[in-house]
């Protein structure tokens, strides 16, 4: 079948195919189909399309139109990522296509979820995560992270040496879009292991604390439909302001947290993908005079946590989580410590190390090369070696 001649391509060249580099003197992404892409590739923008739009004879009729901005190299076009946080559908798409790891940071309002996220990003992108077996490789949410950093910066400026209320950030507002209130920050990670050349997408939930409160309180699945993506999470970090657990109102904080962990245990029992749960005591620098955190090997034992061991329900739920096969960790963290001499984040890296070490276990296959004797045929040698082994 001979294709009808197409109108002349626009100059400068512009292509709808995101993989095409023809406009930059590269190659046509569909070179296998169209040997003369300038005259017959339907992805190139052409004179008639621009003047009259796609008409009935348009060879693209019926095809899904890709937005022009998808081409990352088109001059004047936008980047293929907006820099904003990702929505559920982007995340679902990413989970299908690439090695992606999904982490939800859960906890009540003002637990410090966003601060932890910002602090981790700052450390990672500045190359300060020496123990993390990954380094920063990309982010589709840079703009969002910049805005979060701005909020942290403003919070730091206003923070008094005493810490005031202990709140660094205005809490993350609930999105107006009720259909999809879930937002995710994307971080691309590259393993430090030179034999591992993957680009791993780490997706971290950046959701309002109110949502998680509802998530813990409401047991019916239908009510939590909009948080369905969380069922696909590899791990949960359950965060609580350590100051609230040592305050007189500790029972309320403990109850909220226990409900949340109960839901996670139920999720796991229901067959969810969840692998790890981390309990993060945030703003720990503010309670350090009341509770001295134990060394990592002893952190799962409640007896080592001083006053915090009184949270019976919480520790019981953690034990229940471990019993259903979840990998449990407990972490004292100060994302932005108050004390002037300790302005560096404390414990942030270890939380993410715990998560990634659990959810990104990968055994690399050793490359086996049969020795080929001098003058022998490599194929013959390989066949014999295979038969023997």
């Amino acid at each position, binding site marked *: 079948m001979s294709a009808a001649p197409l109108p002349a391509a626009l100059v400068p060249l512009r292509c709808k195919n995101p993989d095409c*580099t023809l406009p*930059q*003197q*590269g190659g046509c992404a569909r070179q296998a189909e169209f040997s003369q892409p300038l005259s017959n590739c339907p992805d190139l923008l052409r004179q008639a399309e621009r003047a009259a739009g796609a008409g009935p004879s348009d060879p693209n009729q019926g095809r899904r139109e890709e937005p022009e901005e998808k081409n*990352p*190299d088109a*001059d004047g076009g936008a*980047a293929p*990522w907006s*820099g904003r946080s990702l929505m559920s559908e982007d995340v679902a798409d990413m989970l299908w296509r690439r090695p992606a790891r999904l982490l939800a940071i859960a906890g009540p309002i003002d637990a410090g979820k966003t601060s932890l996220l910002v*602090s981790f990003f*700052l*450390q990672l*992108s*500045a*190359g*300060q995560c020496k123990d993390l077996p990954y*380094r*920063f*490789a*990309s*982010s589709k949410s*840079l703009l969002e*992270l*910049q805005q979060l*950093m701005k909020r*942290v*910066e403003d919070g*730091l*400026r206003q923070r008094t040496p005493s810490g005031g209320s202990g709140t660094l950030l205005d809490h993350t507002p609930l999105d107006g879009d009720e259909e999809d209130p879930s937002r995710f920050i994307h971080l691309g990670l*590259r393993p430090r292991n*030179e034999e591992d050349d993957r680009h791993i997408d780490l997706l971290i939930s950046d959701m309002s604390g109110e949502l998680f409160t509802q998530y813990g309180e409401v047991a019916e699945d239908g009510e939590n439909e909009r948080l369905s993506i969380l069922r696909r999470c590899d791990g949960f970090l359950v965060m609580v302001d350590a100051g609230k657990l040592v305050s007189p109102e500790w029972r309320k904080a403990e109850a909220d947290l226990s409900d949340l962990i109960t839901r996670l245990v139920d999720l796991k029992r229901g067959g969810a993908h969840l692998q790890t749960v981390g309990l993060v005591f945030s703003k720990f620098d503010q309670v350090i005079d009341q509770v001295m955190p134990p060394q990592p090997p002893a952190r799962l034992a409640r007896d080592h946590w001083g006053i915090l061991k009184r949270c019976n329900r919480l520790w019981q739920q953690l034990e229940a989580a471990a019993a259903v096969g979840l990998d449990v960790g407990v972490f004292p963290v100060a994302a*932005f410590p108050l004390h*002037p001499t300790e*302005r*560096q*984040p404390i414990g942030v890296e270890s939380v993410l190390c715990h998560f990634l070490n659990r959810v990104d276990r990968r055994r690399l296959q050793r490359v086996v090369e049969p020795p080929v004797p001098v003058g022998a045929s490599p194929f013959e040698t390989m066949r014999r070696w295979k038969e023997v082994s």
Partner: protein
Amino acid sequence: MDEAKIKQVKDELLKLVKQSGVTKAEANTEKMDVLIRAAGDWLTKDLDAEFRSVQILHLNTSIPGVHQRKCLESVWNRIQVDWEEVGLEAADVLPLQLVLSALVRCNVENLTYSDVASVLFHHGPYCGLDGKSIQVVGWMRAHYSGAGDLGIPPADEDQPGFAAVETQSNFLWWGQAKYSHQSRVSFRTYKDKDEQLWRVASEAADWGHLLAVAPSSAWVQEILLSLGQDLDETKTLWQWIELTYPVIQKVKGEVQEPLNALATEDCLLLPVTYLRLDLARKLDRTTMAKEVGVDLDGKLDRGEWAAWIYREMVLEARMTRGMS
């Protein structure tokens, strides 16, 4: 420099001397005292001292005629002000290296030394240094490990805010877009991988010169990786130089002052700057090996070569524009 500081430097020097094999008696000579006072004065007052002292620390004392290198000239002129009769010999270079190490470790220079010139400590392993000099450079590298790393949040109470972090965000954003602001095209359009590497690494210095060098050079390598470059491709330094020389001639970027003048005098440790200056107007291995003082047979992969180019461009940017 007051007497207390001199005593502190001498104590530090004795610690270094003990490890380097130089005797205590040698360390306590009058000549050593002169070296400490004069070199200390030079470090605090001479604008080029910061850069030159790193070069001096990387001098291979086993090479004949090493004491005649131009990088020693300014410090030795200063020493001769205090002691006219002193004559520079090859045997004086190691004591001078020890004194400079002790001075810097005692923060005598009190300059932005660590920010600007620490970039060059990454080139040390290629200098073919002998035992004692390796120790000296090793101490310095240990002293500056992590130099220039960002504090989060900034440790300086007088400078609240995330100025450096904003620079870092812009650097990340630039790298991810893979768009050359200098050439106004995507880096993908450069089909010659060596030209692409050069353009990415050199332009990156514009964006990243205020940032810590190790993580920012890792980011440069990540950009190249995402552009499809094979970062594991290994060649000798000379082979990389041969591949890059035509690109540099094509691009024709001038070396900015003050690095231009300093490197024209003595280009020790700076093969990329040497190529850019093109003083010999041709690529001659023997001349270049002598001028830059690094082992041209040393092997490094494409990623390491990109990082090397980036570091020299960062040095130039820091020396020209400063650290603020």
